[in-house]
């Protein structure tokens, strides 16, 4: 039988909610009994996507950040969405070291980090509408047992 579970969360674009989002995703994924490394990979990727929504999506404005997670057997599907300013050139944005905010000492490595720690990363975005990041990861620890 297939094991399934899902959750959906929405929070204000405040920097203290970056930490909150990490615990939320970690405790939801924890039901799969992951290794420390797997959990840390997922938390790091989510953290980058949520930080982007807050810093780039909404900049100094208040807005809502949405996170959806679905677990199917040992597969984790995560969506992080904002209705902020959107990304003009997605390919450019995904390039390592590219940042539109060098003045904030951003490293430009957010998307690279997400790609490194997750199996798949998709970006959908429209200027003036918002952005959606989709990430997938299969937990290997469950298969090795």
């Amino acid at each position: 039988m297939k094991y399934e579970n899902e959750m959906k969360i929405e929070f204000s674009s405040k920097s203290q909610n970056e930490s909150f989002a990490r615990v939320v995703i970690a405790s939801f994924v924890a039901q799969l009994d992951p290794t420390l490394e797997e959990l840390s990979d997922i938390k790091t990727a989510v953290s980058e996507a949520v930080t982007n929504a807050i810093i780039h999506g909404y900049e100094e404005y208040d807005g809502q950040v949405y996170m959806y997670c679905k677990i199917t057997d040992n597969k984790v599907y995560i969506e992080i969405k904002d209705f902020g300013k959107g990304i003009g050139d997605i390919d450019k944005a995904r390039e390592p070291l590219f940042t539109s905010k060098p003045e904030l000492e951003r490293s430009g490595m957010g998307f690279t980090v997400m790609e490194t720690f997750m199996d798949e990363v998709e970006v959908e975005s429209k200027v003036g509408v918002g952005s959606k990041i989709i990430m997938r990861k299969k937990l290997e620890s469950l298969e090795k047992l």
Partner: protein
Amino acid sequence: MGEIKRFMRDDGMIKVSRSLKEVANRVRINKDLLNKKLGREPTIEEISHEIGTSVEEIVMALESNAEVESLYKTIHQ
């Protein structure tokens, strides 16, 4: 049985569940020590500072302890 084996396993693939259990133990001990030192209940940040573990991890550890205990109970019933 699979559950127990998974829990006891030690092949370098450290499970989150076990590492959190260790944090939970340190939290419990240091909470009491701080309580004596301060003369009141310490806050979660004070505990975090004392044991050098993030508030995030402490929050998860507090829950993992409850879970591990209930798993233990189920097994030994």
